């Protein structure tokens, strides 16, 4: 039996780590569980799920149920997992809404405030003030007290996964006060162009984008010739991307050194709608002309799924190209559809595990786990089970990659357990230079960036 909770309690008593005392409980099928709410990055959801469902977080395999009562999977964002941790009953309740939204919500919970992240939107689809989904706190945690889990609850989260450190988040002053449980993974992203069933020359020639070119693309659509160097490539290239709650977006800006507060010009299919001020993708449908796109300005999709759906829209005959930045779970998911997006190389380098590990490919971020400024004993126990923060690292967050990395816990063990998986191997596979994982084992890295920003170089 694991002794995580006992060790955590001992370290708390010794004053090596600090904790607030408040934890909530919930009774499911006659058993009372200590409940820990987890939110944050959607790009990292696959590994979080693997660690919880199959890793060493729980003493034995937990019961895992998705919102609505169905089976959860690596692509599920709202689910519960319950069982024993260190001999004590725990229920982990997930509602993953994005890195920035997650940090904002944990800060609100930590500071006892209730501030939603809002921003102005002006475009043909919506004009007004948008509220970032998941703020001030997530609203779609699973309600485990109702049989079949059909209902959801709003709750103040204890923990959040973020694709960057708090230093480059929407509000570093606030989020810098949170407890950093350290780097748990390297999270990759890719640039991809939309599906085209009968490609023209512009689409065919567009195989690579460079960092300087992309910085300019963020300010508005550019001709394909700008990227390809061929004057005959006159199709316009339109940017499809995420809203301000997205860690993918923050990493995009950081990789391009664009400036985190600057606005960009993005587009969405005309069949998109705003649902409670959140840009929501419509069904996959052909885009036959420029009228098939609408400008959404500085706004974007709340999830990578919206970007993937748009890139699956067939643009044949439209004389435009959709270009998106996207996390690997959504991009690889698109590949299994009948209308897949196509990855582009960045500065001539393809996205794959090997190129990231070696420092050749620059579009990736440091995945962190954050908690409230004074996490509850329960939150600390769960964070420790996920990262080894207390029992392995003595209350010091892992801030390094490669041989200096102290990444541990269930999340670290997930990488080594999935060497045969095509998406969860994290660099442990036989041929990393031909495979793309959802995230990379931080211990395997041979390179790092000087901070959340900058270009990687080998140690």
């Amino acid at each position, binding site marked *: 039996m694991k002794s995580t909770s006992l060790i955590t309690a001992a370290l708390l008593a010794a004053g090596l780590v600090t904790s607030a005392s408040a934890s909530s409980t919930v009774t499911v099928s006659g058993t009372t569980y200590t409940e820990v709410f987890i939110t944050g990055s959607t790009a990292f959801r696959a590994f979080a799920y693997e660690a919880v469902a199959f890793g060493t977080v729980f003493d034995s395999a937990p019961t895992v149920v998705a919102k609505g009562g169905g089976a959860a999977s690596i692509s599920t964002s709202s689910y519960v997992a319950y069982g024993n941790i260190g001999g004590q009953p725990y229920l982990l309740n997930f509602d993953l809404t994005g890195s920035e939204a997650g940090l904002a919500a944990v800060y609100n919970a930590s500071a006892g405030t209730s501030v939603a992240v809002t921003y102005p939107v002006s475009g043909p689809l919506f004009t007004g003030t948008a509220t970032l989904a998941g703020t001030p706190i997530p609203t779609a945690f699973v309600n485990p007290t109702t049989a079949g889990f059909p209902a959801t609850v709003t709750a103040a989260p204890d923990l959040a996964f973020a694709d960057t450190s708090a*230093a480059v988040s929407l509000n*570093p002053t606030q989020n810098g006060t949170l407890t950093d449980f350290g780097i748990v993974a390297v999270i990759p992203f890719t640039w991809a162009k939309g599906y085209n069933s009968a490609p023209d020359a512009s689409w065919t020639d567009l195989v690579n984008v460079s960092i300087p070119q992309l910085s300019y693309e963020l300010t508005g659509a550019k001709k394909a010739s700008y990227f390809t160097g061929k004057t005959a490539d006159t199709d316009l290239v339109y940017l499809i991307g995420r809203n301000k709650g997205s860690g993918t977006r923050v990493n995009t800006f950081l990789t391009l050194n*664009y400036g985190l507060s600057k606005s960009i010009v993005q587009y969405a299919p005309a069949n998109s709608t705003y649902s409670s001020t959140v840009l929501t993708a419509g069904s996959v449908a052909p885009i036959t002309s420029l009228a098939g796109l609408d400008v959404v300005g500085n706004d974007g999709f709340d999830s990578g799924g919206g970007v993937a759906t748009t890139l699956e829209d067939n643009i044949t005959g439209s004389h435009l190209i959709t270009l998106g930045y996207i996390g690997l779970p959504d991009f690889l998911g698109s590949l299994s559809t009948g209308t897949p997006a196509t990855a582009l190389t960045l500065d001539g380098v393809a996205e794959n595990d090997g190129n990231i590990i070696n420092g050749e490919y620059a579009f990736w971020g440091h995945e962190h786990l954050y908690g409230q400024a004074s996490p509850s004993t329960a939150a600390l126990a769960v964070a420790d089970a996920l990262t080894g923060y207390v029992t392995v690292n003595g209350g010091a967050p892992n801030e390094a990659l490669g041989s200096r990395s102290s990444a541990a816990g269930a999340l670290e063990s997930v990488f080594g357990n999935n060497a045969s998986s095509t998406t969860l191997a994290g660099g442990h596979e036989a041929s990393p230079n031909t495979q793309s994982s959802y995230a990379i084992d931080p211990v395997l890295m041979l390179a790092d960036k*000087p901070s959340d920003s900058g270009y990687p170089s080998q140690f």
Partner: protein
Amino acid sequence: MKTCLRISIAVNLMLVAGLVFIWSTRPKVGMPAKSSLVVLAVPPAQPRPAPVGPAAARPEPAPFRWQQLENRDYHIYVKNLRGTGCPEPSVRAIVTADVAAVYGQRRRMLEEKLARLADSSWSNRLALAGSEAGMRTELQNLPAAQDRLIADLLGLPPAPKPGATPPPAGEPNPEASLPLVFQDIDPVKLNLSPEDQMRLAYLRQSFLQEIGGAGQDTADPAYLARWQAAQPKYDSLLQGSLGNEVYNKIQMIEYQQTVAEETARLNSKN
């Protein structure tokens, strides 16, 4: 002594020139706050004058007196200079020239002593070998000490002494330089949004936290190690947070200031 007199006259002439400049460029209504470094060093001495309408009668300024600025404590003198609205580049130029003059004197004294020692007998040199080595070390360390004093007087965090710890084999021992986040940045000139300014303030505060706060022992090798680890990280964070355009402008400001300070130092030696 003639040299000292000349230096003294030169420094005083510079101070007078600075004061004339201050007088002619007193804070104007609506003038943006110039240096956010003041936040890290000393709080503004006086609140800015309240805006007045164009038709409002402007009272005649009280006649300027030296006593308004002079103070036995040079830190307070610098604070007073800033309090009068003296532009930050002028404050830097005045401080740099003053410190360079003092260290110039010390350098010349050491050089003269070493020269006399070199001309003395071998027995005398052997007897004073320890003293000679000490003087040579001090001479070698003068530029760094001068930089630290300038940084201290300007309210910048003190850079640790370069070379305080031997570098690992095969690795260079880069000098400790001031992170770009501490450059004198005019948010209006650089068109920084309120969010950018918040990020800048956060990075400055966060850097200080990471190196262990102000008031560190600059000879502490651990302090040097913390500084050297944090400095490139915060330059990179600044570039990522504010973007290439702003970052390049800040680098240009740093270059211009370095040139201005070096020029002032060279002028004070001549």
